[in-house]
């Protein structure tokens, strides 16, 4: 492996910042180091490039122990872009890019024409040629970032470490920047970035290290690492992990801060059981807020938006294959569940032949039912009136209540507790 760390532990005075970390970084990957503030991300990066030296464990670069390497030799192998950059003396863009060539030009030798060519090529590659004589301090944050990256690239190292490089960049620059990093990866450079934007990391990094309190929680391919469980573990927040339909990459949506579990389960044996008849995303605003109850959802088709959401939220689901009508098996399952629930919520779903069975089963139930009605049933009836007839019958029953907005719905659910 070109760069790896073995059993690294690091203390600032008495505070243990990194605890027994072993990682290997290989060619062809863009690595993202994720973790909450104070988890030791930056410290890890600084140990990897030899700026900090750990007493315990070792960093090995191309089979050399980094502690025994000369500073100039490390710089030939590893280039670093640190978090913030400000300078008190103004240097021109070209002068700064030239600084990256420090180890390639001897102290007493003159800059060759070969060197000049390399610098000009890099300036061109970053579209900085027109700015080459501008002072660094007169540039915008995005341009400054570019110059610093260009300087690091000028080192022509095989490993590139970056500490939160996208923090000061606008959204469009962030994407452009991350794509540039992917290009370097394809050129055979190992790129390791510390990043706090989970979505940006999951979109562009193919390998992810999750750090918490100085320990590696998980390390591997992003699909295995970016899960609801892992993110909850390190950020203590509930998220929904989705696949971006356009890029096929993962993205997350945080939706609620986790309450201590004791509040939810341990002290309360009387958790209400609620069943939600969902579909087509009609329950997307309802489901996440019902975290405190014992929830079941169905019958929905697999891959339906509400199915995915309920799955993320770890609710019990009665499901059917995509686009197929409800089978007897699932009907029976639903009936069994409904026998034990305290409340049934019928979301504002459209009815077709495939999911009409839901309505029929509800019609036979004598449990408390809430019809969450945003649009009249006629507008969402695609069964030529069958659904409307059953729905209206249902509506007229004494155990059924119709509610038109979310606020009233949640109030009603809460009032059930007393």
């Amino acid at each position, binding site marked *: 492996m070109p760069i790896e760390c073995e059993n690294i532990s690091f203390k600032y005075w008495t505070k243990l910042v990194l605890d027994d970390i072993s990682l290997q970084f290989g060619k062809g990957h863009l690595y993202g180091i994720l973790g909450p503030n104070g988890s030791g991300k930056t410290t890890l990066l*600084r140990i990897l*490039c*030899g*700026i*900090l*030296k750990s007493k315990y464990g070792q960093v090995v670069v191309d089979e050399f122990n980094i502690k025994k390497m*000369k*500073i*100039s030799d*490390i*710089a*030939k192998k*590893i*280039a*670093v872009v*640190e978090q913030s*950059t400000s*300078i*008190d*003396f*103004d*240097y*021109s863009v070209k*002068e700064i890019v030239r*600084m*990256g060539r*420090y*180890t390639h030009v001897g*102290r*007493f030798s003159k800059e060759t024409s070969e060197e000049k060519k390399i610098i000009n090529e890099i300036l061109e590659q970053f579209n900085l040629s027109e700015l080459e004589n501008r002072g660094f301090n007169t540039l915008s944050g995005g341009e400054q970032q570019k110059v610093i990256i260009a*300087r690091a690239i000028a*080192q022509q190292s095989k490993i590139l470490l970056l500490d939160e490089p996208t923090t000061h960049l606008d959204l469009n620059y962030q994407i452009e920047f991350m794509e540039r990093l992917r290009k370097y990866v394809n050129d055979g450079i190992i790129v390791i970035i510390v990043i706090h934007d989970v979505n940006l990391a999951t979109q562009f990094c193919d390998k992810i290290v999750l750090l918490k309190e100085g320990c590696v929680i998980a390390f591997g391919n992003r699909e295995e690492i970016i899960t609801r469980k892992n993110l909850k573990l390190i950020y203590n927040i509930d998220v929904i992990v989705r696949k971006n339909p356009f890029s096929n990459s993962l993205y997350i949506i945080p939706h609620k801060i986790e309450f201590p579990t004791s509040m939810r389960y341990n002290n309360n044996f009387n958790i209400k059981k609620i069943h939600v008849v969902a579909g087509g995303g009609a329950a997307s605003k309802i489901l996440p807020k019902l975290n405190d109850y014992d929830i079941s959802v169905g019958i929905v088709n697999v891959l339906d938006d509400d199915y995915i959401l309920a799955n993320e939220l770890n609710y019990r689901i009665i499901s059917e294959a995509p686009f197929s009508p409800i089978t007897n098996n699932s009907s029976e399952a639903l009936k069994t569940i409904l026998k034990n629930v305290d409340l049934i919520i019928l979301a504002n779903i459209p009815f077709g032949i495939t999911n009409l069975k839901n309505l029929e089963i509800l019609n036979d139930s004598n449990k408390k039912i809430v019809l969450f009605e945003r649009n009249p049933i006629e507008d969402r009836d695609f069964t030529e009136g069958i659904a409307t007839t059953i729905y209206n019958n249902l509506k007229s029953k004494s155990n059924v209540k119709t509610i038109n907005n979310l606020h009233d719905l949640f109030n009603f659910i809460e009032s059930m507790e007393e």
Partner: protein
Amino acid sequence: MVLIFIFFFLFLSIIIALSIGSVQIEFFKIIAIILDQIGFPIGTVWTSGEQVIILELRLPRVLMSVVVGAMLGVAGVAAQGLFRNPIVDPYIIGIASAAGCGVSLCVVLGFASLLGLFTIPLVSFLFAMLAIIVIYKLSQTRYRMSMTVLLLAGIAFSFFFSAFTSFILYFSEDKVHYILSYLMGSFWGASWVDLYIVFIVMVPGTIILYFYGRDLNIMVFGDDNAQSIGVNVEQSKRIILIIMTLLTSTAVAFCGSIGFVGLIIPHFMRLLVGSDNRKLVPYSAVGGGLLLLWADVLARNLISPLEIPVGIFTALLGGPFFVYLVVQKKKSGELM
């Protein structure tokens, strides 16, 4: 190109400076005397009195002012680069005040001529070194030499030594003038031997600093960044600090603490040629030389035969000129 031009200007200035004084000596005589000395005899057209004035009095003094100016200018570049701060000068870490304190003590206790002519330079050099070594030790932290501690300790030492010097001055009525004229700095009584010593320190110091110019450039990004670019930061810092200390304390030892050159010259040159220290070092050397040369001409001639300490003039000249420069820059929009 510009450097060649100002070198020429420096040469011209030296000739002109040699001709100015209470005794008027024509240009051609000055050139003839110098040519004669370096091995091109063109017939004696001067009196022996004129020869003594030029060779023994004016020439060493003029050259001394140029060399010391160069030292302070270069040391200023080192200080500002090292501390990443455009408003420090080489005296900031207490070199001048430690030397001044040592000399004051020495004079008051009556040891001023214990070791002959070199007593004062030696004492001031030793005191400066002592202060620097203590401050240097203080600034060592676990991984790095902390420039912040170095600066703070230096300023604290500066105040301490200045206070001690004031204390000595207060109780030494008869020697106040002698001590003060040293403290303010002057080239009075510069000899060829002094010049050789100063020159021997200045030339290698400037050359080494020139070759560390790139390190200084990169260090503007901070120690960690510089290290990741490949600079052996701790070693470079140490070398640059040693060069700066040697240049400054040698200058202070022979000529007292001439202020303002080390602050203003790097600043001025940065406005002219940019921040690249490899340009700043040679330019500041020549610029510092020029500034002190002319300041000294004024110092010894303005109310001749009385002499004014040259340090007063550097400040009088440099201050307004610098303000003018800043205003110009502001007008052209280069300064916000």
